[in-house]
């Protein structure tokens, strides 16, 4: 009797899952509190804006968002992912900011066969050997900003570069990405400990070493500290500071102010990209939040646009793996994202342009990241070569 009942239940469930979902439940697992919480909030604001503009329906389906805060703790992240997947039974996952959290939650998501759309962290281990049909990035492969920075330093003909990154895996990866593209002389590679406050030691070394360019991958508060102190030491007159775009966008500009001027950064997006999707995004974001968007907001917004397009193309069949994967892979070409139209590589990472931006004042006196050049055209993830998927 019990066996029969179970059979009926399974049959009912199977019948249910083959149908188009009548509503969309998205698990948004992100870092929303603590010192790094501003990044998750920026991504969430971008995502929410797109959702609001779509009338609360992504792909035409009423959308329920379930937010969870990993507090930048991988263990917390894993527990929350379990809860979102097993108890809340979400159809889609997104939101993770940091690669270490991503690597911790990824096995759980992958085993549940739920699609994950990355609004930020796109670690090389998930895009290379460990690639999966359930992983889809709407941002950029982890090393791309650094590769673009290396290419920029190379194109400027800087003979000597000084590299600085925190002493943790992502820091080493960042400088590897930079060095892949930069062929000049590297005077020093410095790895201060994570969350170091004072950079006077490194700045004294910089003054003595006199490089042409400094590449600083110092995310969040570390970058704020470094840029402020770099300026106080009077070094901008002697060497060019280059940073990855995510460490110098509007969230950092608002905290640092004028010392940001004259920096170069590299990014997959700029607020002044000339396309329809971007003009709409920047205008609506300013209207909604009374501030300029950062690239994190763009990533959140683009993630929502791509989900919207893919759900629409798959006619709501999020559970139909093949159809939804195909819809996701082609969605960035048609969703009018602020980056324009772009393609996805087989490992689920964008093939897109990367820009050099300069920190300047616009006509209203605001400090903005103005696009000056396209440094990498149709650039794709270096680790695609290790992914066997077609």
């Amino acid at each position, binding site marked *: 009797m019990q066996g029969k009942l179970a059979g009926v239940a399974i049959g009912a469930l199977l019948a249910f899952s083959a149908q188009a979902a009548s509503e969309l439940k998205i698990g948004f697992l992100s870092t929303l509190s603590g010192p790094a919480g501003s990044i998750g909030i920026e991504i969430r604001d971008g995502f929410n804006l797109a959702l609001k503009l779509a009338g609360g329906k992504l792909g035409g389906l009423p959308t329920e968002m379930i937010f969870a805060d990993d507090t930048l703790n991988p263990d917390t992240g894993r527990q929350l992912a379990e809860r979102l997947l097993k108890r809340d039974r979400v159809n889609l996952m997104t939101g993770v900011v940091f690669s270490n959290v991503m690597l911790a939650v990824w096995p759980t998501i992958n085993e549940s066969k739920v699609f994950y759309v990355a609004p930020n962290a796109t670690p090389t281990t998930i895009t290379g050997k460990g690639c999966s049909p359930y992983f889809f990035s709407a941002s950029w492969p982890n090393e791309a900003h650094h590769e673009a920075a290396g290419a920029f330093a190379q194109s400027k003909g800087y003979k000597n570069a000084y590299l600085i990154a925190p002493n943790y895996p992502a820091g080493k990866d960042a400088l590897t990405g930079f060095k892949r593209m930069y062929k000049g002389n590297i005077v020093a590679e410095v790895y201060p*400990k994570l969350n170091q*406050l*004072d950079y*006077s*030691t490194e700045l004294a070394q910089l003054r003595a070493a006199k490089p042409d360019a400094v590449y600083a991958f110092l995310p969040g508060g570390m970058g704020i500290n470094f840029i402020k102190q770099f300026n*106080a030491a*009077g070094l901008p007159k002697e060497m060019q500071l280059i940073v990855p775009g995510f460490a110098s966008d509007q969230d950092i500009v608002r*905290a*640092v*102010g004028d010392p940001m001027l004259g920096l170069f950064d590299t990014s997959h997006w700029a607020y002044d990209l000339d396309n329809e999707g971007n003009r709409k995004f920047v205008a609506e974001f300013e209207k909604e939040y009374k501030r300029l968007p950062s690239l994190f907001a763009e990533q959140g917004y683009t993630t929502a646009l791509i989900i919207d397009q893919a759900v629409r193309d798959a006619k709501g069949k999020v559970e139909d793996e093949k159809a939804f994967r195909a819809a996701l892979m082609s969605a960035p070409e048609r969703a009018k994202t602020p980056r324009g139209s772009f393609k996805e590589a087989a490992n689920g990472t964008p093939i897109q342009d990367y820009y050099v931006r300069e920190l300047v004042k616009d006509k209203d006196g605001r400090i903005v990241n103005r696009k000056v050049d396209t440094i990498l055209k149709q650039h794709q993830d270096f680790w695609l070569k290790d992914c066997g998927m077609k």
Partner: protein
Amino acid sequence: MPASLFLEQTLNGLQFGLMLFLLAAGLTLVFGIMDMINLAHGSLYMIGAYFMASFSQMTGSFWGGMALALVATAIVGALLEMSLLRRLYGRDHLTQVLATFAIILIANEVVRIVWGSQPMLLNTPADLAGPVTLPGGMQYASYRLAIIAVGAVVALLLYLLVAKTRVGMLVRAGASNREMAIAMGVNIRRLFTAVFALGAALCALAGAMLGPILAVQVGMGENILILAFVVIVIGGTGSIRGAFVGSLLVGIVDTGGRAFLPLFFGVFLPPQFASAAGPAIASVLIYLLMAVVLYFRPQGLFPARG
């Protein structure tokens, strides 16, 4: 190594040490006199920096903003002491750690609600924005010199306050033997509140002075609090002199380690080992220092309690 680099790194160590002293001085008084472990000390530092950012934007003046921030943070400190911390003095250290850790979390969220989650804008005043040329031709950030000056002046004032005034005598009496001080008729409640407010003002001074070269953001206090605890363990709890010597030791050892250890290892190790081992050992150097001090002087260098 050129002499100017050596001198610059020494100044860096001095500057970092004096800033740590501002934090450690308040912490050590609270720890020594009230026998209270206050993890929320870092939160007062954060609140001080946020007040500084707001008031200096409001008034348009760096130093005016700083004066307001000091007063406001002292008031917050006094209110915190009178409403909450006072109830914890008699409890064991574990309870104090738990309760003040809760205050850290609450303070972080309150700051986020009031000021938002984005880091705050706070820059050096214009006349201290660039580097100056020191005698001998060395360039050094003028703002860092200002930090050294402020730190040194405050250290001197604190010394005079504690060593030469009647209030200072009561503070020393409280630190060396609390029960005896109460028995002699000292109004210990009022003294505690005053000491706590003073500690909060010193925190605000550290936050205000460091804000222009560090990120003013939620959670900024936790990083620096660990260093302040290392300082008071090295210096001996309750002793201003200990906090002063401990701060300078930690500042100079930390900066010197980062600057010179990689070079030192480079002399006899292959470059790839030297570049990996140098920073790794430099980052634990202050804890090694603490372990060595504790081995020879378990009470710290200058314990307040004989």
